[in-house]
């Protein structure tokens, strides 16, 4: 392969990884914008979804049904966690809430280990066939499914947030919780919905990626972290920017791993993150972002 073909290949694989990170990043943003929590356990939704889908298929369910059920189950798990662990602690500080999600991460991971053990599991590819040529890269069919289904999910999400009143009310909670209450939105219930959406997105990421790489009980944390990177770099606020940032992150990671060294894959990815954070910090110093809790307007 020539260099440009290689690069195209890396970019292709980066895009696929990036879409997975984007699904997780979106879940993180949904949770953070509505409930102000940084969810360290986001990746566990992916692990749960993946492993559950494998089991459902082993029990005889057809592939598509298993996938759909797993995503729904992950959504239910998300909502349940919000009701049981987050809502009771909603007056607590951000640090305490972070620790609670760490606890949830540990508890979920342990449960997954208990139920599924340490072995890797596989899902079959969604359709059979040889890899497809896209520009100068060869992309296997599962990767195309990943991109296509994610795209569909993003469209559904977009329509939900912009066309339905429930989606708008969810956004409203994130934008201005006081005003949301004034028009009658029950902010706590919206929190549960946000967590359920995050669970669904995480579960979807898990089932999409498992045909490409194995699913294990501990696959969650690093996945969630990478989604977090994309979300945080753009400020944990905007859905479209999070998707773009996660895609960019995936591509940078793939190019770094491919061109420099695959051993250094994670180092490059997070090294880039640290560089971006430092750059933002220095830029803030120059422009003069003052540490002020309330930029008090009179």
């Amino acid at each position, binding site marked *: 392969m020539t260099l440009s073909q290689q690069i195209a290949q890396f970019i292709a694989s980066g895009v696929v990884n990036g879409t997975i990170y984007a699904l997780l990043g979106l879940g993180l943003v949904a949770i953070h914008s509505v409930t102000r929590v*940084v969810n360290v356990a986001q990746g566990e939704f992916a692990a749960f979804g993946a492993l559950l889908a494998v089991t459902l298929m082993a029990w005889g369910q057809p592939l598509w049904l298993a996938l759909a059920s797993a995503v729904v189950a992950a959504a239910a798990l998300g909502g349940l966690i919000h009701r049981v*662990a987050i809502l*009771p*602690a909603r007056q*607590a*500080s*951000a*640090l*305490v809430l*972070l*620790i*609670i999600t*760490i*606890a*949830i*991460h*540990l*508890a*979920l*991971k*342990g*449960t997954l*280990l*208990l139920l599924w053990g340490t072995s890797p599991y596989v899902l079959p590819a969604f359709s059979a066939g040889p890899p497809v040529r896209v520009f100068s890269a060869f992309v296997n069919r599962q990767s195309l499914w990943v991109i296509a289904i994610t795209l569909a999910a993003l469209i559904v999400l977009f329509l939900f947030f912009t066309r339905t009143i429930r989606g708008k009310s969810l956004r409203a909670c994130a934008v201005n919780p006081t005003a949301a209450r004034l028009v009658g939105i029950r902010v706590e219930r919206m929190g549960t919905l946000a967590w359920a959406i995050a669970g669904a997105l995480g579960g979807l990421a898990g089932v999409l990626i498992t045909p490409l790489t194995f699913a294990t009980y501990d696959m969650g*944390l690093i996945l969630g*972290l990478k989604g*977090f*990177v994309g979300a*945080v770099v753009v400020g*944990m606020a905007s859905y479209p920017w999070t998707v773009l940032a996660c895609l960019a992150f995936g591509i940078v990671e793939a190019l770094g791993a491919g061109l420099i*060294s695959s*051993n*250094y*894959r*994670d*180092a490059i990815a*997070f*090294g880039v*993150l*640290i560089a971006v*954070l*430092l750059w*933002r*910090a*220095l830029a*803030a*110093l120059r422009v*003069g*972002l*003052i*540490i*002020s*809790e309330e*930029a*008090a*307007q*009179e």
Partner: protein
Amino acid sequence: MRRARAWTALFMAALVVLPFLIQGRLSLSIFVFIGLYSLIVLGLTLLAGHAGQVSLGQAAFYGLGAYISAITTLRGLDPWIALPLSVGGSALVAFLIGAPIFVLRGHYLVLGTLGFNIVADVFIRNLQHLTGGPTGLTGIPPLHIGQSVIAGDRAYYYLTWGLLLAGYWLCRNLIHSRIGRALVAIRSSEVAAASLGINPAYYKGRMLALSAGLAGLAGALYVHYLSFVSPSPFAFTFSIDLLVMSVLGGIYHLPGAVLGTGILTALREVLRTVMPRLLGTGASAEYEIIVFGLLLAVVVILSPSGVWPGVAALLRIGGRDEPAKSAIIAREIFPAGGTTSDPQHETAAQEVVLEVDQLQKRFGGLLAVHNLSFSVRAGEVYAIIGPNGAGKTTAFNLISGVLRPTRGVVRLRGAVVTHLPPYRIAALGVGRTFQTPKVFGDLTVLENVMVGLHRRTGAEFFWAMLGLGRREDVRSQSEAAGYLQLVGILDRANERAATLPFGALRLLEIARALAAGPRLLLLDEPASGLTSSERAALVRLIRRVCEAGVTVMLVEHDVAMVMGVADRILVLNYGEQVAEGTPAEVRADPRVIAAYLGETTAEEAS
């Protein structure tokens, strides 16, 4: 106090005899590890609890210290020199990473340290020629005293716990010093701390370095204990474990570091040995993780301050040390007609202390302040009034550096200060209070004022850790008491600031601001929320402050009060100046009356 000392003595005695007590029954090595981990968690508790900065990268600093010591001693460096090198190296790296990132908010530090941990892990595994890669390095020379080698569980047990206790002592001194108070101030309200001249980023960076140094020390001890090092203990999952240990024990309490570490490590061992016996299978690892998760969740939800406060209550140890009451001397710092603080702060009468020129602040589409120009002369009381939304507090925020103007210049005694950060402006002699009082709730009233003295005292980190700042602290206490007496709340000196009634909070803020020795004091709506007798007392206080040579600027809604205390008044409306003059002039000015009571026709185009 005495009970705490008794329990401490008991604890230390138990530590000393422990190896003999458990000989033959339990392995001592787990206690060595508890000691090592406690060193790291001590630093983390200090950082996360006291300074309010959560780091998920401590395992990397642990590893950094380990590998620095391993690599240098394998190349012939004396281990006793490698030890401080590990400490310093970890601290330096932490400082370089942390210092810029601290300008941003909490999540970024968590992410940055976590990312650093991952990067460090990858480098350790891949720089084979240096670190031995995934298989690690063996044959690391042990520590030695003279000819005798320090090896084995018992030796490292005593060494580790000895260093841990030393570290604990240093950290405790730090917490009780002026640095410790500054950290609590930063954690409570960075804006208020900055208004007293404290630079938050400076302190946060150094705290990260300190915590990294402690972790590095633990790492160095680890490699000499085991004579072996590999990358696996330093993965970011361990950083998460460390945070769990810290939170479990109690993130705001140093003893919690040891307690939490002990509980979690012991629990892990119990699960590893007991569970297989109970359940027959090799299922311990899963249960361990689940149990940790549930335990953590339960503790955090039910008792967010961790396990230590409960234990302390059980042992009937007081929550915190109280400053020696004898140090509170009711001294008359301000005899009638006398002056306050440094002579250097006396300014010639009629000198222009503050000059504001064409100041403008735009928030997106909203022009909050427009074309503001005025000057304030030394020794006067200058008030800014205006209806709601007129831009008064915005003006204050622009002067004190909390906000940056879109246009215009602010000068302090001739020097341009427009784009300086708030802690620099405070250092140049500007003090302020806030619309809603930002006192440091976890400190006592007296300690709050002592934070005000921060810039005028000097015990720095190392000095403070060695406990050498005590004498200065005693002096600070009596000086702070003087300010408390000036504002009239000396009787509440030892109460926790968060418990104060509202009027007292305002007075505390003023006392604290005065303690910094400002030339110019900005009071932001000091009368709001006060009863009428409290307002009268406030007016008298402002007059006394003025007599002592401090120029006072006031933003207020209570126009009656302002009329009674101000020398000159500036009236704002819609962000622009409407009138300026003496109270009599302003009261009679029809434009002012119109501004307040409202004009429905556009009489005066603003």
